């Protein structure tokens, strides 16, 4: 065998498989976007001008921004204990991160329904305590979507944050303390700036993930606060409009590729420090 054909034996099966089952079909989806219902770019025009679709885009961006900020803050607090706590604290924190991480997105969405729905546990507790008379509407709206998405995204915020915190040199912190800085000051003026790259990475990662996320918003939003991914689903299966669904998918893919390129730049050695 020649030098060139040998690697091909190992590399080709996967590349051919993905080319046939993924790359070509995606080209087909692009084809749908410019041929259904008739040839032309009217689907892209509609996606970028139709007020109904634009409102879905804006809602998605708004929800993702809120989810990103909340997840990164909560993730930062959790990472802090995971990296810098005593061994027992570290183990306990790790369980709080990894057990939910490995549990299916459907089970977690169901857990939030059990807690937040009309007859759910939270409303039950609040009524028993006499805080409220009528059940609060906590789910099947934007609030429910944000809560469920934050819960899903926290582990994804924690992993880059924790790895950034692990690189912080203990001696720098001790030096700052030795120079007379208070603990609060060491945290805000030394520790947080030193983990800034991790913060940016975590925020971008969560944002990218949140934008294309489908299941949690669809269940906890209850069809009322539709996000981009659910819009695509509805346009395929409920008001058959395949061309528009395809166009929105292509736009989503382009937007996320751009964000991922930014993320890679952020995480590359040059971006750090």
């Amino acid at each position, binding site marked *: *065998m020649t030098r060139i054909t*040998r*690697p091909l*034996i190992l*590399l080709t*099966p*996967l*590349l051919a498989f*993905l080319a046939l*089952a*993924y790359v070509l*079909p*995606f080209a*087909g*989806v692009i084809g749908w976007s410019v041929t259904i219902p008739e040839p032309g770019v009217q689907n892209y025009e509609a996606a970028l001008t139709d007020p109904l679709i634009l409102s879905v885009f804006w809602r998605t961006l708004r929800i993702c921004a809120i989810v990103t900020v909340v997840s990164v803050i909560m993730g930062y607090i*959790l990472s802090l*204990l995971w990296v810098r*706590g*005593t061994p027992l604290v570290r*183990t*306990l*924190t790790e*369980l*709080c*991160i990894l*057990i*939910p991480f*490995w*549990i*299916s*997105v*459907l*089970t*977690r969405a*169901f*857990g*939030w*329904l*059990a*807690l937040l*729905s009309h*007859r759910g*546990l939270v409303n*039950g507790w609040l009524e028993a305590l006499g805080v409220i008379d009528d059940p609060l509407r906590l789910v099947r709206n934007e609030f429910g979507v944000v809560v469920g998405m934050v*819960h899903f995204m*926290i582990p994804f915020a924690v992993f880059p944050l924790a790895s950034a915190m692990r690189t912080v040199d203990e001696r720098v*912190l*001790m030096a700052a303390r030795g120079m007379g800085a208070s603990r609060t000051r*060491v945290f805000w003026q030394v520790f947080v700036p030193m983990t800034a790259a991790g913060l940016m990475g975590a925020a971008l990662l969560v944002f990218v993930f949140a934008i*294309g996320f489908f*299941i949690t918003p*669809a*269940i906890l939003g209850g069809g009322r606060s539709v996000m981009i*991914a659910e819009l*695509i*689903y509805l346009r*395929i299966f409920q008001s058959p409009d395949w061309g528009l669904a395809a166009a929105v*998918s292509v736009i*989503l*893919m382009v937007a996320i590729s751009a964000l991922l390129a930014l993320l890679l730049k952020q995480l590359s050695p040059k971006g750090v420090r």
Partner: protein
Amino acid sequence: MIRLRPGLIATVLAVLVGIFMLMPLLAVVPVSFTPKRFLSVPTDELSLRHYRTLYEDPEWFEGIWLSVRIGLLSAGFATALGTFFSLGIWMFRPRFAGLLMGIALLPMVAPPVVSALTLYFFLITLTQYNGVFAYDTMLGVALAHSVMIVPFAVVLVSVSLAQVDRRMDLAARNMGAGLGTRVFKVILPNIKFGVIAAFFLTFVLSWEEIAVTIFITSVEAVTLPRLMWQGLRDNIDPAIAAISVVLIVIVATVVVGRAVIVAVKARRA
């Protein structure tokens, strides 16, 4: 040396976040024991009826069994493809290795709903030519799941390969070993745990896959997540609480077990 531990405020906040993380998992436990047919918290009577449903109702049993078969098929296929691909990159370091790796990881980084629409297109196109690898069939779902999970197999096997000493492969080659001998007798035995881990992870991912599955199935190929999805969207069936508790117990046992093993090892060391 004194370490700077997180202070009181950080600890209190982290406990609150930790409770937030575990709360929805704990909430399904009481709901699963309700005697009623709708989502509710049992007040005076506990019932196991929803657990009984899981193995008595053929719908749930078949969903679980179908998910197992699809998981084994797609994980086996994806692990084999991913292992050979990673080996090819590692052994031959081809030009454009970064680009090839990027193509292999594409389904992992694309938004799930875009992958779902792409695979929907793929399967309805295939359906025009055959009935085996088609929309709403077991093998069709297995094929689509393979696409989604193959990047994870590539990542895990590549990570194990990064720890293998290249000189071993070089020695084998200089002794005249052919490609087959090098792969199967020299390198694979050294990364067998990575390959097993890749199979395990891809099986779990297929077992849980839902976004793509919703797009490519309707009434015939109803996997367990698909069944849960239907129950969550239409009326909330407490049988979902029962299956959720079972799944949570399995995951928690594995994760806690691993933590205990790590802790015991750390103490001995």
